[in-house]
């Protein structure tokens, strides 16, 4: 029997659709506020709020709170750690999916 390949470990923090969408979006831009991330990811306000908190706690996203005139503005930036984790996740998923057999049809 052929040896079972060792499957790479998937980062559970990134392996969640909402958080992944946010991180990929932030990877493509310099900085954005909550409303921009909300509209581009299509998430609900509550869900996005929870996910941003998780990502901030994990150090994957920097949060900057400023005043624009009299209005508060909160902007998000992907941190260096966030980018590193995202690239590592991409590598992991690529290695994992490369293990899927190329041929179609019955096995054996």
């Amino acid at each position, binding site marked *: 029997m052929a040896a079972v390949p060792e499957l790479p470990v998937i980062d559970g923090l990134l392996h969640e659709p909402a958080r992944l969408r946010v991180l990929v979006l932030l990877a493509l831009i310099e900085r954005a506020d909550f409303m921009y991330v909300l*509209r581009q990811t299509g998430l609900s306000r509550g869900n996005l709020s929870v996910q941003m908190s998780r990502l901030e706690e994990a150090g994957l996203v920097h949060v900057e709170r400023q005043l624009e005139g009299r209005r508060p503005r909160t902007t998000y930036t992907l941190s260096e750690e966030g*980018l590193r984790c995202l690239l590592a996740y991409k590598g992991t998923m690529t290695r994992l999916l490369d293990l899927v057999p190329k041929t179609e049809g019955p096995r054996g």
Partner: protein
Amino acid sequence: MAITQANDDRHLFRAYWDDGLVDLLFGGALLVTGIGWASDLGALAVVQAPLWVVLWAPLRKRFVEPRAGYVEFSMARRQRNTHALRWTVALGVGTLVLFALVALLIPRPVEGELPRRLVVGLPAMLVAIGVALAGVLMGAVRFGTYALGLALAAAFTVMLSLAPDIPLVAGGLAVTGWGATLFARFMRSSREYEERP
């Protein structure tokens, strides 16, 4: 580390212009220029056009940003835009210089109908070239459509010997109308977002 792939954010950058505000301002500038020209206020009509450009940033901040959100694109994108803008300005100025040279080289008095007829289409054609370049800069396909419409209007102006302000007014009305449609659509979708939990 940095994201360096050239076109990853292209769809985001293209969507940045979809609210219709730039169309409204451009259409307004074109319309006022055409009306001013028709009222024999040609020079004044042209001078007002850049003022609409100045209006874009404060209007976007006031009406679009609270609804679409605030974004800063990557340094790579900003550098590409600066590079494209330089080329756009160079091509635009080059086109103007070319037309000026052609106009100077046509011997006077002008013999025959053709050169005089071509001149009436020149303003709309110049605007069409500028709009096409702006469309390339923004990645907004609809600006290519505006450019094509203006070029066709310029051609009709020449064929029918119309006044040069007519394609500008017609183009201004069309672009303002479509810009208003886009802006209304944007405001409606924004209300839907605001009402979502």
